[in-house]
């Protein structure tokens, strides 16, 4: 049996007993990456030497019976959106192509102190904006189940590398579904924790009030293990919750008795693919057979979730991305070209006698900003910056941004009311299975609507998980989403595990 066929939890056990070494395990995964990633493109960078050195060091410490961290010796892939000190951190953007942060994100620091072996950095939509990973400035990532299709996004690389067995564990980030959606489309488990459960310090911000870091893994137990290692209060993040972190992985096999599952009426209206609906309904049957009660509930404001999200997220993004101005770090335009351009424009305007335009011509600094940002950002990032700047600008703030914040509260109140009646909410992750690469190009709105089922959890700050619940006729994975009240990740994981124990979907291997 190849080492890469064991789960992270099994591998951890084998490592602890000394039956395998981290070097052997890491080598096996590196080999798998070498064999498959040129077809998939999940990783932006793999540092095999560093990973093996780290694995060797952990093995040595284990032999010397020194204390080791929770993930000692397990390989983990990290989305290229979390700062790793002195290591390239690009966020999938030309803007940060050669950027090396001088500090570790809290999550990265926790992985290091848990003695995880960091394999490399996974591909993503630029600044986590997108649902297909096609917005990466560097490469495409393909869905391991069908290389013509998207792995989803923005954590497309993070999901694809787990699906293809290139790593047992992987870290993603989720602002509107960016962990759950690719997990669903790639047939792996992906969990977005409660807002504030995992530190955002060092997570390059997309939309600060929505962003959360979370685990991706091949099964719920492994996801729980990884969550345990990264969760917990951080004094460097003012929005981090000062709440104890339960031992999720120890509790996960304990089924929930008297479980009440809510099914959202509004989830099954229009646009939901028949095969997906079928798979989700069958999953509910499984729960019912396990003694859970299924209850239809309503989230009356859910139809406004995408609109709310596409006001709030771009507004915050336009602000968060203002720092990329080519002054202190990141891409800066060529100075000579910039000056040439301005001189040419000035001459043209002079000869045309356009005094008004001449008066308003950019000064050197303003033009440096505009060119640097135009060159450093891709089209989707520009679109969202523009959208956000518009929604926050004088005259539109009340109608868009402020209105969005109010509807956001109504959405949250819907959930609060629902969780009075049920313990978990179950439903689809996406309306469709993985779509073809390029299929959504040129239709940003259609792309935004892909987030239909996932954005609410971000707006409300709730934890959500995506887990495999079947396959389409054409062999594409289907995801089941569970959502829970704030800080109820233990319920979420145990509920997910109940289903997983009763099914085999998560054991299916990619054809590649």
């Amino acid at each position, binding site marked *: 049996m190849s080492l890469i066929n064991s789960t992270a939890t099994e591998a951890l056990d084998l490592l602890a007993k000394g039956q395998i070494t981290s070097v052997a395990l890491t080598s096996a995964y590196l080999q798998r990456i070498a064999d498959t990633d040129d077809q998939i493109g999940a990783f932006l960078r793999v540092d095999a030497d560093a990973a093996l050195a780290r694995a060797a060091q952990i093995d040595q410490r284990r032999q010397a019976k020194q204390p080791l961290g929770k993930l000692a010796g397990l390989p983990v892939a990290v989305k290229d959106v979390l700062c790793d000190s002195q290591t390239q951190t690009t966020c999938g953007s030309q803007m940060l192509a050669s950027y090396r*942060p001088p*500090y570790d994100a809290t999550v990265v620091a926790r992985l290091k102190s848990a003695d995880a072996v960091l394999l490399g950095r996974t591909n993503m939509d630029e600044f986590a904006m997108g649902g297909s990973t096609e917005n990466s400035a560097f490469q495409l990532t393909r869905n391991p189940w069908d290389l013509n299709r998207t792995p989803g996004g923005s954590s497309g690389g993070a999901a694809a590398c787990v699906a293809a067995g290139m790593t047992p564990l992987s870290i993603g980030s989720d602002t509107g579904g960016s962990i759950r959606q690719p997990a669903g489309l790639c047939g792996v488990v992906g969990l977005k924790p409660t807002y504030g459960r995992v530190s955002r310090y060092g997570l390059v*911000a997309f939309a600060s009030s929505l962003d959360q870091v979370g685990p991706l893994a091949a099964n719920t137990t492994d996801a729980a293990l990884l969550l345990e290692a990264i969760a917990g209060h951080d004094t460097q993040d003012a*929005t981090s919750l000062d709440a104890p972190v339960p031992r999720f992985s120890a509790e996960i096999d304990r089924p929930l008795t008297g479980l009440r599952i809510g099914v959202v009426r509004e989830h099954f209206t229009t646009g939901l693919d028949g095969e997906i609906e079928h798979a989700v309904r069958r999953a509910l049957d499984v729960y019912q057979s396990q003694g859970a009660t299924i209850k239809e509930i309503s989230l009356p404001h859910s139809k406004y979730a995408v609109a709310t999200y596409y006001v709030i997220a771009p507004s915050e993004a336009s602000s968060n991305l203002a*720092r990329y101005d080519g002054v*202190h770090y990141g891409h800066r335009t060529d100075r000579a070209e910039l000056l040439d351009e301005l001189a040419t424009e000035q001459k043209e305007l002079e000869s045309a006698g356009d005094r008004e335009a001449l008066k308003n011509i950019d000064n050197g600094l303003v033009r440096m900003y505009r060119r640097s940002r135009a060159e450093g950002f891709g089209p989707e990032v520009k679109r969202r910056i523009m959208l956000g700047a518009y929604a926050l600008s004088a005259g539109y703030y009340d109608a868009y941004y402020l209105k969005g914040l109010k509807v956001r509260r109504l959405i949250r109140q819907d959930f609060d009311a629902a969780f009075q009646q049920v313990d978990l909410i179950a439903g689809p992750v996406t309306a469709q299975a993985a779509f073809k690469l390029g299929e959504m190009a040129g239709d940003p709105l259609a792309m935004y609507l892909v987030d239909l089922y996932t954005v609410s959890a971000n707006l409300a700050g709730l934890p959500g998980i995506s887990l495999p619940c079947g396959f389409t006729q054409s062999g594409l994975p289907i995801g089941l989403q569970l959502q829970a009240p704030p800080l109820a990740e233990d319920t979420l994981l145990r509920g997910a595990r109940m289903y997983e124990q009763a099914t085999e979907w998560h054991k299916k291997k990619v054809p590649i």
Partner: protein
Amino acid sequence: MSTPYTTIIGLEVHVQLATQSKLFCGCPAQFGAEPNTQTCPVCMGLPGSLPVMNRAAYELSLKTAVALHCEIPTFTKWDRKQYFYPDLPKGYQISQFDLPMSANGYMKISDDKGRFEPKKVGITRAHLEEDAGKSIHDEVTGKADSEIDLNRTGTPLLEIVSEPDMRSSAEARAYLQELKLLLTYIGVSDCNMQEGSLRVDANVNLHLETPVGHVATPIVEIKNMNSFRAVQQALDYEAKRQYRVWQETGQKLGDSPKQTRGWDDATGKTMAQRSKEESSDYRYFPDPDLVPVRTTAERVEEVRAALGELPADLRTRLTATHGLSAYDADVLVNQGPDIVKYFLLAAETSGDYKGACNWVTQDILRSVKEQDVAIDQFAVSALQLAALITAINDGQLPKPRAKEVFELMLVDRMDVAAAINTLGIEQVDESALVTLCQDLLRANPKIVADVQNGKHQAIGPLVGQAKKKNPNADPGRVREICLELVARGE
């Protein structure tokens, strides 16, 4: 024909709060370090970094707000003010927009020279924000690159915005002096203008009474004033300029957008700043990285109780309870908290407020200035000064010799007793004084004759001679005895 007008002035003051570390990170907030040696991922605005609010900055701003009689809302939050500038590394400044931590306060001002009536100046709001960095431009050719230093980025500022309640540059200056005094008293800022811990922007326009009615000129914001004197000069200049412009153009408030003008100390003029840089849309919105702050009424009361005596209260106490003149109390209190602390210790210990006030406002202040030392480094401690005052009041030390004693205390750092001893000061017995005077009169028949002829001032040289023979002789008493002896014809 001239039109009567009133100058309407409102001031925006930024004070740097006296914290150890910056507003949202642990970098030192101290002035004067080598460029870019006091920065970290947070104040550099590096991707992924997050701000966490400095508790002391909030406490200091709360203290100030209470001292300014502001209302303290139970809920306040942080907003982002967005604009692009190289010394603003995040592309936004963390500030407070619609829910500032305090509003609707006031401060009283008055003038000891009586140039204006005592009045209350309204405080519109006082809110917290982070400072930007520093850009060093090529002022000569304007062609070389600008250099950016981020040391100052993220230091805590309290922006105190007044109502347009001031009517002259003298009132504006008095407001600034009183504000600085208040802030240094309660220890929230050192208010050092040279180091930028206190910065002033002024909004000014004129209200004219014309034959056709009341007219206001467009409001101008003046920046770049580096001293209180500059503020006063700039306001005077600007009032005259606006009057001239109004006479020339007739432009009224609302005819043109608010203009920003920079004060130039060298030419003594305000200069228009480029209009394109002015027009901004800051796109304020709540900072999602920072959580709101809730302040209970009890907390505000605690702060109020712990505030101690403010300058205005101290002035009242010194005049009403301790008999100081309003002028003396003003001069003393305006010296700032360190001098006042020194004064109060000397006054309370000696029990003589008036005496302590005279010593402090005259000899002590002069010597402190001459020696250019801080009062707590001064050779004569407050307790020593109290001992000096007590020695005088107890009659151990004749008043006329007190300055000599003080000199020894100051220069040779002696205590009062040692100085008195060294100078050989002792009480002179009355009979010894009479004998001394008799001797002097006998030796100076010409003087005696002059005095007998009504020239009383002729006695002067005898007083000097008496002092030479016995330094402890009280000159006043010597004069009295001599005149008496001459009158009796002895």
